[in-house]
């Protein structure tokens, strides 16, 4: 592919829900150019007759009822637990209440 642009990088960052500070963009673009160039070695492989794997073993288990974790245990790591829920800041129509 052609070299990544700042716009490409920002688009991928948006999809990944990550922010890239403006000052880091040139270094990130160079890193990605290097990595993508490295990955291009795969273009030398002949995969015309190769099938992607669909044979990996997956175990099927009986659908049995078992005990779930107590709600308070599940909530113990929440920033603001309010059993049986956790709360987050309210955002209304894009603005914070």
């Amino acid at each position, binding site marked *: 592919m052609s070299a990544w642009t700042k716009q490409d990088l920002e688009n991928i960052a948006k999809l990944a*829900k*990550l922010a890239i500070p403006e000052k880091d963009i040139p270094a990130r673009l160079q890193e990605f150019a290097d990595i993508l160039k490295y990955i291009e070695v795969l273009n030398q492989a002949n995969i015309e007759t190769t099938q992607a794997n669909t044979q990996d073993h997956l175990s099927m288990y009986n659908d049995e009822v078992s005990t779930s974790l107590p709600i308070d245990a599940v909530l113990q*790591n929440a920033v603001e637990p309010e059993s049986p829920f956790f709360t987050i800041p309210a955002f209304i129509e894009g603005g914070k209440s």
Partner: protein
Amino acid sequence: MSTSEILHSPITELSRKLRKKECTSVELTTAFLNHTKKSNPSLQSFLTIAEESALEQAKKADELLEKNATTHDLCGIPIAIKDIICTKGIKTTAASRILENFVPPFDATVVSHLKQVGSVILGKTNCDEFAMGSSNENSAFANCTNPWNTEYVPGGSSGGSACAVSSRQTPGSLGTDTGGSIRQPASLCGIVGIKPTYGRVSRFGSMAFASSLDQIGPFANTVLDAALILDVISQSCTKDSTYAQKPFIFDQQQICTSIKGKKIGVPWKFVETYANQEVLKNFKDQIDFFTKQGATIETIELPHQHFASACYYIIAPAEASSNLARYDGIRYTLQEGRTESLDQMYVQSRSLGFGEEVKRRILLGTFVLSAGYYDAYYNKAVHIRELIRKDYQDALKKVDAIATPTTPTPAFKLGAKTKNPLEMYHADVFTVGVPLAGNPGLNIPTGFSQNNLPFGLQLVGRPFEEDVLFQLGYAHELEHKWYEKVPTV
């Protein structure tokens, strides 16, 4: 037993002493805890030392042993756990700021199995953030160091688990291996480490990095110790559909059988292309040893291995970008709530919580899965993965195991590769193809470089034939006894 005897004994020996009542689990646990507390400031191998719960577990193990109940060989034996594997009530951070205060409400299956047989959980070991790295320098909290020389890296991502065993802070530990994260640090720290066959060990409770590659495995100072731990952690689980329901059964007699007649394949072209001169010379000495023991050495080809690293750095980030989407700042992670919108809250929480390498891989993974690039990158990589898998299948029809060096060089200095991610990725060149194929891979120590840094040998076997690897490793260990050489820390 004296403290020194405790710290320098393999698990098999400690287990015998416990049964003969020549020591107690509380004594063992106290000795390892004291040594860890003293040495951890320079090694940074532990992120959490679980002193209180460890001593409680040790007391319970002593009660079981006192009753002369039928106990497993690991009853009363301290084990350390990589901080990416969930431990109920003990902080589990994946060495990431985003999980800095996370305390799991449940145990990973492997931890449950260890507790069930009476093992003592000493604490949580340092690692690269979310197991992404080859030097342990991507930990958000501290750089773990190599116990043979603290200016050097211990390897990664399970660097803390390897360092802790090598420096005798613990007689055994658990790590995870996605592209070499057990075998590479085991090699750089001079100990035994095995990545089991994909599906051999349940991944339930191990924070997912790349789900089609991740496997939990043991570190120990001897082959028998590693096999004993694998026996326990590979037992049943109904919470991971990729668990193959084929537990490894420890059979000392089989492991100690002569290796005469075993066939070992060596991909000489691959090895000579990537190993440095010092590593290559050491590797050839090991091959000579196996020949003298009556094994047959055959030259083999692994024609697609030079694609493995590039293939891995598409598949693993792709899976990581999906797996790490769960860390959103909403339910149980670091939360940056001072934002204008919900979307910004996700972005800010993730951007503050994740380190540079994790962000790099999430971005790369998001890119290779994105519309317009999926076929050119991800789809191509999963097809090439099959060629790599077939390389191993074909070779292992002719031989019992494949030998390569585990790493192309001995340990490198802290900071030597942090500015160049690609150079860091090359540290996995011999290990990265094995998880792509799903086969088991064992590292055994094979001596020291001129700088007194360990070398390692990687043995790769057929799926679910870890016993053959242990057999070969044991024959080597019996002759060389590298576990008797201990770093001064």
